[in-house]
């Protein structure tokens, strides 16, 4: 008993320091891990969940009687606006109405026969191609199907 304690007091440094470090590492790792486990749910919580997407469903964009040649209307496509255009030639075109530049909603300009974004003067042609101004990408084009009086729009099916 006596010899053990004297051995301890003779050399506490080299024996005890690694032990202390070991305990510190053990406690520190546990602490960091538990703080991470508190923070992780909070960080995940901050990211809003994705709202259910439309998927392959078709949307009734308009009735054929609503549009005349060289006019357009915006319609709800899932959670975002879509733009349905009847060209001067009478064809239907459906596109995403969200400008690819900074997200404003675009409109059809009958005088120019082009799609125009009022926010920063971006221009798209009737296929959705960005032709002038700041937009970096074309507008997404949708499939249009006329069934009786209904004009149905759906996402383009991947070929």
């Amino acid at each position, binding site marked *: 008993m006596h010899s053990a304690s004297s051995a301890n007091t003779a050399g506490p440094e080299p024996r005890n320091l690694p032990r202390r470090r070991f305990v510190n590492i053990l406690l520190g790792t546990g602490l960091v891990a538990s703080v991470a486990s508190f923070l992780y749910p*909070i960080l995940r*919580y901050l990211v809003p*969940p994705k709202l259910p997407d439309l998927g392959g469903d078709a949307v009734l964009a308009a009735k054929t009687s609503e549009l005349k040649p060289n006019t357009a209307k915006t319609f709800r496509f899932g959670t975002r606006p879509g733009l349905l255009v009847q060209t001067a030639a009478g064809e239907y075109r459906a596109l995403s109405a969200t400008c690819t530049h900074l997200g404003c909603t675009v409109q059809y300009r009958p005088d120019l026969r082009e799609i125009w974004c009022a926010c920063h003067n971006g221009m798209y042609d009737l296929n959705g191609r960005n032709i002038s101004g700041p937009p970096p990408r074309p507008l997404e084009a949708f499939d249009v199907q006329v069934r009786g009086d209904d004009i149905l729009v759906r996402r383009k099916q991947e070929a």
Partner: protein
Amino acid sequence: MASPASTIRKWLDERFPLDDIKALAEKKKVPVHRYSHWYFLGGMTLFLFGVQVLTGALLLLYYRPGADEAFESVQFIMTQVHFGWLIRSVHSWSANLLIFMAFAHLFSVLFLRSYRKPRELTWVSGILLLFLMLGFGFSGYLLPWNTLSYFATKVGTEIPAQIPVIGRPTLLFLRGGEDITGSTLTRMFGFHVAIFPAIATLLIGLHLALIQWFGMSIPPALEVEWQSLAPEKREVRFFPNFVLRELMAWYVALGLLGALAALFPWGLGVKADPFASAPAGIKPEWYFLFMFQTLKLIPAKVLGMDGEMLGILAFGLVGAVALLLPFLDRAKPFNTRRWISGLACVFLGYMAVMTVYGWVAK
């Protein structure tokens, strides 16, 4: 050339009294004696309040007040948002533990007689904080807009309406109209997230400042015993000794909250329908249960007086006595000291019995 750290330190020293604060923290001591573990309860209450602020702010990111949206938005939090169930359940559990802790803190301060001169204002601010916490509980209860919360608010706002003269205006003020509608929800939401937090910030600031100013009270019953201890055994340093212990307790509390929320997540119930009947066995939160049960037991007429009225008056009186307790504790003209502890014991027993009775009663 000075290191960047010391340059920043020097810049800060000239503009912020960091050293003064450090010196103050190092000087601050906490007495050690047989009852010093009770000193942790106030800090625990403060911690749970912090949890409420954090989780409440997180819930505000998705919650929408309004009779058409509130229930749906809480449902969205519970089912769609990642860990939304956890955040809301921690908020509810922490709210309940906070009220419990505040009561425990109150009674520990009462029995240790820490409210006496010069700490009367610390006590008064504490009682006001307890009332405020009950207000938080009441206003927050309506926010999910479910059947239980709808009727709890209906009954809860009906009670002050019994008071003569100011009763009706109070009811109209609390409800934002004759009935519990979306307007009531808007008001309770406003109280819960803006008005009460503002008052709480002021009161907690005052409460803590007073505690810092006067230091911890030594229970008079232990004064002699404590004085006889060796000077180095009488106190520990607030920083780091006391703070580290408090932090350990907080850490355990956080773990407990997480476990409670995960094992017993808070339910949502059924959306409030103003035209549905009150469900059987409807009860308020446990901390209102002793008052609820008392009001249920009082006969309609007591000595020609309205029974409900009598109950409300009695609880009002208890509240007033609690608020003014330090000023009622005096040796002259007659000694009230022993009475205070005795009456507090009786009231604590009454609360406990009535709460359990209210819990099991049909």
